[in-house]
Structures are given as C-alpha cells and as structure tokens.
C-alpha cells in the first residue's frame, strides 16, 4: 500500500505547490489525478517517485518511509526520455542492475514483447514514432516489475488514436502485473476509462478537492451511459475548481 500523510511542498521561491495532502492507495489500485494546470499534480508524483523531497509529511510504501528513488517504483513522463545514443534494448537496460547480462537480456526481451516492440530491440530512438517511444518508456519502467507505476500525462503528446491504443495496452499490462498505478492526466475520458478512483486537485496551494470511486465494471465501454455519467460528473467537479 502507498500512503501519503499530510504532505506539503514549499519551493524555495515561495510557491506552495502542495499543502496537507493525504491519500492512501491500495495495492493494484488505479488512481488518476486530475486538476487545473499548476495545481501540483506533477509535484506530487515527483515526490512519490523520490525525485523531489517533501517539505512536510511523508510517503510510505507498506509502512516504510520513502526517501529518494525506490526500486519498487517505476515512472513514465510525458516525454519518453530515451537516451538517443542507445538502442531500445539498452535504454530498457537502464532500469536493470545487479544481474548478469543474460538475465538482463531475457528480461528486456520479455518486456519488449509485452509492449509489442520485440522487433525493435536494436532500433534507435530516432527511428521510433512517438507512441513507440512511449511504449519503450513504459517497458523501461516495468522491466524491474515494480509494484508501483507512476505516470505523468504519459499519453498527452500523442494523437487520439494512438492514445486510445496505449490506454488499452496499459490496462492489459496492468491485468497481467497488477501494479498500483498513479496516473496524472488532463483528459477526463482517459481518467474514467482507466481509474478505480479519480482524485480532483485544486491549486493555490495545491490540495485534494474531491475523490470519486468509480464503480464501473471492466472492461469499460466508452459509449455506455454510466461512463458518460462519470465523465460529466468529473468534468463538473473540474470546472468548478
């Protein structure tokens, strides 16, 4: 379980990006963070990932406080952040260590097959489309089989068709691996399609405004009345913020 207790973040320039954030996320739960630009979603995710430290409060995984990057956590950003000088396989290798080369190679081949890029192991990032690059980033985040996957607007730079594909793909991976997911997005439909729970945040200073547990069965159909109903509801909550 991922526990966030009275978390606050004050930047040196005086900006209070987060104030008193409490959130408990269950094993294998999918939680989306939505909210206006600048309300602290990325900051929250960066603290969870260990890239940024909290000013107050704490983050704990299964009761153990997290300080700094943690092997049980994988992260995907809006940009793929691949090393342009490395092949796809070697980019994925970035997340592996303390194993012999053969074990690494096997894990890399496995995870690339899972994201549908088995044939591109030896390609370079410049040869990939945006969607493929993002799948490599997902593979790199998952190759260690982390129990928690953090995603900060991972699909927002992609065209809508590719975005749909990758959402479905991510859900497939989740069904197999059952990692906990914290997903930042601006796309309400994306949040409703993926999440067990949607957390609406507001800014100045960043805090949690509302939480919605979605009782929608999976797989979800975007045309269902219930789906549309949730979309409406979340959008309203966002508009008021």
């Amino acid at each position, binding site marked *: 379980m991922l526990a966030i207790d009275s978390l606050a973040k004050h930047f040196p320039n005086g900006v209070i990006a987060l104030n008193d954030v409490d959130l408990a996320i269950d094993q294998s739960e999918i939680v989306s963070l939505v909210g206006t630009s600048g309300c602290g979603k990325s900051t929250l995710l960066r603290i969870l*990932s260990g*890239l940024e430290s909290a000013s107050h409060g704490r983050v704990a995984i299964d009761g153990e406080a997290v300080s700094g990057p943690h092997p049980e956590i994988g992260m995907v950003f809006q940009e793929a*952040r691949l090393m*342009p000088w490395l092949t796809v396989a070697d980019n994925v290798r*970035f997340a592996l260590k303390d194993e012999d080369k053969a074990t690494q190679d096997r894990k890399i081949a496995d995870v690339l097959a899972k994201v549908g890029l088995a044939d*591109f192991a030896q390609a*370079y990032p*410049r*040869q990939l489309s945006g969607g493929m690059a993002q799948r490599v980033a997902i593979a*790199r985040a998952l190759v260690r089989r982390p129990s928690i996957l953090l995603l900060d607007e991972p699909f927002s730079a992609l065209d809508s068709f590719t975005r749909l594909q990758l959402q479905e793909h991510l859900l497939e991976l989740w069904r197999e691996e059952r990692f906990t997911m914290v997903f930042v997005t601006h796309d309400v439909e994306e949040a409703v399609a993926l999440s067990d729970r949607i957390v609406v945040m507001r800014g100045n200073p960043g805090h949690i405004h509302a939480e919605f547990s979605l009782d929608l069965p999976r797989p979800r159909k975007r045309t269902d009345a219930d789906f549309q109903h949730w979309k409406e509801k979340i959008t309203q909550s966002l508009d008021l913020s």
Partner: protein
Amino acid sequence: MTAEVYNRETEAAAPDRAVASARPSRVLSSLSGTKGLIVPAVLVAGWSTLSWAGVFAPNLVPGPAAVLAEISSLWASGDLTSHIGVTLTRVFFGFIAGTLAATLLGALTGYSRTARELLDPTLQALKAVPSLAWVPLFILWFGIFEASKVTLIAVGVFFPIYLNLVEGIQGVDRKLVEVARLNRFSRLDLVRRVLLPATLPSYVVGLRAGLALGWMFVIAAELMGASEGLGYLMIDGQMTGRPAVIVASLILFAIAGKLTDALLAGAARPFLAWQDGFGDMKGASHARNR
C-alpha cells in the same frame, strides 16, 4: 555535410574563436565530395589561363605550373618533408597538450559547481586576452625554441575545447539525468552512461575548432621566429622574393588542415552515429521492413 553541421554549431558555441577557424575548414570540407572539387578546379583553370595570358605579373602571382614545380623541387630536395614534419609535430604536441588541459579543466568545472565558481571566471578572463599577446611572455619563459611554440599552440587549442566541453556538460538534458536518478545510478555511472555520451557531440565540435586554431597558431609561431616548418618556408619565400614558395606553403597548409580535420572527424564518427544520422539509411529501412 557533417562538417558543415559541426561548424555551424561551433559558431554558435564559441562565436569569437570559431568564426575565423570555421570558414576555411567549411570550404575545405566540401572538397571531399566530388562536387566540392568543381569550384577549385575552375579556379585553378582560370588562374592557369590568366597567368598564361600574362594578366598577372609572374613575380607577384606565379602560375600553377610554377607552384607545382616549386613543390616538386622542394620535395626532391627532401626539404618539404622535413618542414611538414616539423610543423606537424608542433601541431600534434600543442594539440595534445591543449586537449588534455581543456578536457581536465572542462570536465572539472562542468561537473562540479564549486570548481566552476572557482575557476571559470579566471579562465573566461584569460580567454579575453588575444592569444598572440602571450607570445612575448612565452618566449621569455621558454625561449624561442620548441617549448614556446608548442605552448602557444596549446593555448589556442585549449579555449574552444574547454568552452564547448563546459557548455556540453551544462547543457545535458536534466530530464535524462532524472532517468538515471530514478534508477539509482552511482555518480560514476551517471558520468559514464549519461553525461559522457550526451556531451560527446559538443566535445567533438570543440576538438575540431581547437585543431583549426592549432593550425592558425602554428603559423603565427613559425612566422615569428623559426628555422624550420611551413611557416618558416613562407617567410623564406617572402624574404627571397619567391612567391611560388609562399603559394605552395599556403596550399600545403590547406591540405594539412583539411586532412587532419578529416582524420579527427572520421575517428569521432562511430561514436556519434546515433546523432548525425550516419546510420540513418540502414536504420530507417530496418524500421520500415517490420
């Protein structure tokens, strides 16, 4: 093509130093393609025709035939080989010394903030001294022999490499560094697996600009007092009123500069294939075939 890209970057990276050095090497680098040979061929033909028609005074502008004859007679006497050898040796040692110093200091100030705050202002101030102004001091310290010449060349080589390296390290994408941090890289691994490869392109730009300046400074050093070397040969041609010797030396400088630059670029190319698109053709068809 590749060289052009580099040189344009060099100008952006170290404008004051690079402009002078980038122009000749850009012109020269285009010589390597067959198309690049067209313009020089036309020029030589024009030069030849005009000389033959008597438009130029032969005692000021020698014809290509006279220059060629001069080169072959210098070659036959063995003088040419020894002059070229001496100049090459000076450039070589000056380049190595300048590169070593620039790499050490650049890596230090690029990576460590403390070192940057301590050293960089001083180095930037030294950069502002026109490099030839060092000459009297170097002669005083090292005498008029090899050491002062090599030091002068090293100073010329130093700055473009240092500046490009520091800028390269500073410019490494913070987002990529975060990926290394997320994966709990050690400092050494961060340097080895992220900073080094990410910095390499701008380092190579620096090396090539440095080499070009090395050639510029060897001439300066040899013009100011030498008994051997291509620069000396030029002065000798001037003193003895033999313009063919001067033009021959110019051409030899151009060829030597171009060849050493091509050597450097060729040595760097395998490490930069990911960046300059050298492997693009193969890669793209690989991707398409799937």
